[in-house]
């Protein structure tokens, strides 16, 4: 039996909106959908998108969440909101009233972040729902096409998903190498000295990090529908990449604001303790891990303390996790959070560095290496050799690739590319080629 009605939610929503506006928050209108836990898990599997193309991996994702939920190992996340205009957010029917209010405040924070953070500038939230719907329609049509069918569609999706993180982290527009080639020829002809030694017939014209786009453009034997699927996956990745790059900030900002708004809402006394309990649950540190809610909430509070609220608004506009930590995480913070780095040594995980005078910088730089797109290995297309041999290169930064996985992904690229693909990397300090 729930202790709230939609009318209650609407009433309190008015108060939240009024309050948030006085704090200069500026967000998309939010469209809340109330659903049960089962539908919630379903929505989560598809990243909250009301419509999404089908693939078995989303079924897997559902099963996993469902299994964990049933085992009680993990509560469902309190909130699920997507970067669209209006923002779509989900409220679980089973939630008690105070929790719905907390989520609504939290969502205002997220939506404000989506709308104002520069990392999201190119995500086009006004028509994202339509774009996903359209992508689903196209993939459905390929699945239903008797000359294609689900097996073939899945094969291309499997390959493209394996490469979905290998796009430009800053979501730069892809300029086709064929047009770069024309450009280069022009410059050579015009006598541009800086390019006089360049050969315009060697691809890629410049090193390329956007593997999906390059394969989509340059692979010889792909059919139109295959190129379309690759582009659909790539577009989706470009849309989600800003969220990967701002996880700590985004959750921190939303928590910072739900805490503040909830405090100033004049909540009935009986809701106050449960609200604080839930809040503490969400922003608690996870031993041996980084809880983005915790770190983000902590840092925004520190920024306000040190430089004033205005600075928080600046950070929310111009930073992503990497620059956020680089700029604002101090020695004192590392010490207070007791951050440490560890790695696998033989069969044990052993602490390498702790946050003392000597160690904190090292710990901070390791932390920065694991956030946002830094957690994705940089793989670059170096050279298209004769006989359609594609040479790709892993930009080694001290961390080795997981070989078993890399081999599989190279197989996937080979499938799409339709020719030999060679990856060079470094394993245990020795050059290594797959």
């Amino acid at each position, binding site marked *: 039996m729930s202790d709230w009605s939609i009318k209650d939610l609407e009433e309190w929503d008015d108060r939240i909106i009024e309050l948030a506006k006085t704090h200069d928050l500026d967000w998309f209108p939010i469209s809340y959908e109330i659903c049960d836990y089962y539908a919630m*898990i379903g929505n989560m599997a598809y990243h909250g998108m009301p419509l999404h193309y*089908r693939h078995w991996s989303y*079924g897997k994702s559902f099963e996993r969440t469902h299994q964990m939920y049933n085992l009680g190992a993990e509560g469902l996340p309190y909130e699920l909101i997507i970067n669209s205009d209006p923002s779509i957010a989900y409220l679980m029917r089973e939630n008690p009233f105070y929790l719905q209010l907390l989520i609504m405040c939290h969502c205002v924070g997220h939506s404000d972040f989506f709308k104002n953070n520069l990392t999201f500038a190119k995500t086009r939230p006004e028509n994202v729902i339509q774009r996903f719907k359209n992508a689903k329609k196209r993939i459905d049509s390929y699945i239903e096409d008797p000359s294609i069918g689900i097996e073939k569609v899945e094969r291309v999706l499997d390959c493209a998903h394996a*490469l979905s993180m290998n796009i430009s982290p800053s979501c730069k527009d892809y300029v086709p190498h064929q047009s770069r080639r024309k450009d280069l020829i022009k410059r050579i002809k015009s006598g541009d000295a800086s390019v006089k030694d360049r050969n315009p017939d060697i691809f890629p014209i410049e090193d390329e990090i956007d593997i999906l786009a390059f394969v989509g453009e340059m692979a010889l034997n792909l059919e139109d529908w295959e190129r379309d699927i690759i582009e659909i996956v790539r577009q989706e990745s470009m849309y989600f990449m800003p969220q990967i790059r701002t996880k700590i900030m985004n959750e921190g900002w939303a928590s910072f604001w739900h805490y503040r708004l909830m405090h100033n809402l004049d909540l009935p006394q009986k809701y106050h303790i449960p609200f604080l309990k839930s809040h503490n649950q969400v922003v608690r540190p996870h031993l*041996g891990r980084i809880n983005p809610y915790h770190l983000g909430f902590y840092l925004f509070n520190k920024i306000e303390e040190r430089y004033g609220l205005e600075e928080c608004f600046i950070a929310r506009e111009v930073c992503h996790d990497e620059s956020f930590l680089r700029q604002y995480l101090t020695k004192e913070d590392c010490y207070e959070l007791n951050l*440490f780095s560890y790695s696998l040594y033989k069969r044990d995980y052993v*602490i390498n560095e702790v946050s003392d005078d000597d160690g904190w910088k090292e710990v901070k730089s390791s932390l920065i290496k694991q956030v946002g797109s830094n957690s994705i290995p940089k793989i670059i297309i170096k050279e298209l050799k004769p006989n359609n041999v594609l040479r790709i290169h892993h930009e080694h930064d001290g961390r080795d690739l*997981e070989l078993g996985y890399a081999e599989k992904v190279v197989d996937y690229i080979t499938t799409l590319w339709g020719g030999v693909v060679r990856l060079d990397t470094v394993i245990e300090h020795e050059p290594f080629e797959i």
Partner: protein
Amino acid sequence: MSTFKENKNVSDRSGSDRQRHKEKIDKAIKEGIHDIVADESIIGQDGKKKIKIPVKGIKEYRFVYGDNENKKNVGSAEGQDIHRGQKVGQRGKGSPAKPNKAGNEKGEEYYEVEITLDELSAYLFDHFKLPNMEKKKFKNISSKSFKRSGYRNEGIRPRLDKKETIKKKIKRKKKAIKNSTYDPENEERFGFHHDDLRYRFIKEKKKPTSNAAIFFIMDVSGSMTKQKKFLARSFFFLLYHFIRSKYENTEHCFISHDTSAAEVNEDDFFAKGSTGGTLVSTGLDKCLDVIDTRYHPDTWNIYTFQCSDGDNWPEDNDGAVKSARRLASLSQFFGYCEIEPREGRGAWLQMSTLSEIFGPLVKDNFKIAEIRNKDDVWLAFQRFFGGFNE
């Protein structure tokens, strides 16, 4: 102003993707199931009991960093006392950090699939059969099969055939229209009638096959260590379930021996240990005895399986070969498994292992397999029953 919408949609949006995922897992189970057949948790269970088996998840591969010395993870330890060089976890037991949600870290995923041993047997033994089965005089064994055979008005719910049922209803409706008893204003009232229900009928077909007696001979002497006995039992357990799931009413005879042999019951066979020396011939002779008294080869298909670590008292070797030869001539199939033979041991002790002295007997219906570890149990099984196309 926000909007609130009650989602009353009951459609299960991930249904078809879950179905595809399940199909992939099913395929993985079929392909990888032999990995788990020698698992401790399975051995010794009865067929109806549900067991949980871990099935490796279908992985989604990406470029990820490996978990090793040069990949530093950062975590917080508020309020904890920590220092450099401190151990904070162990490989396999999980690092302090769980695999990242973004899918950029590797993580082994397992699904627990609940399955009964009988179902497991069905997966496992799909393509296997007892070799050289012949029709003998009396026919009291049967192999069962189920076949669809038309429709009935009565049946259990899962066999309700919706299409046939609706056809029946449409027919009835057509008839009603023809007889002008149908009231188009009142469509709702033309519901399903009990007589519309059609159930698929499944007929059990008993196919008489020849009689079979299966002999399980196990060396339980002192040299059979706990581990060796475990491997032998794994093999026999698999064998036992294979036969039980595929052939009805076969006779089983369990013989365990050290320097003397005895026919034992199933529970003792799978549970009991013993110490002492080894006279392999005693086990084989006991088996011959039982055949002579109870299972005449004219009426019975005889299958003999023996597990031993290959150690035998040298003075018994001649007798063992003699008995084995006779047994092989009476049996449709004789399978000998040698458990954990140690390389070269025979040479320096100037002793031959059984597999060496049995070597000359090998032919179509006499096979030898070696079992060194859990994985070999399944290989031995394939060698004996997986058709004869090695």
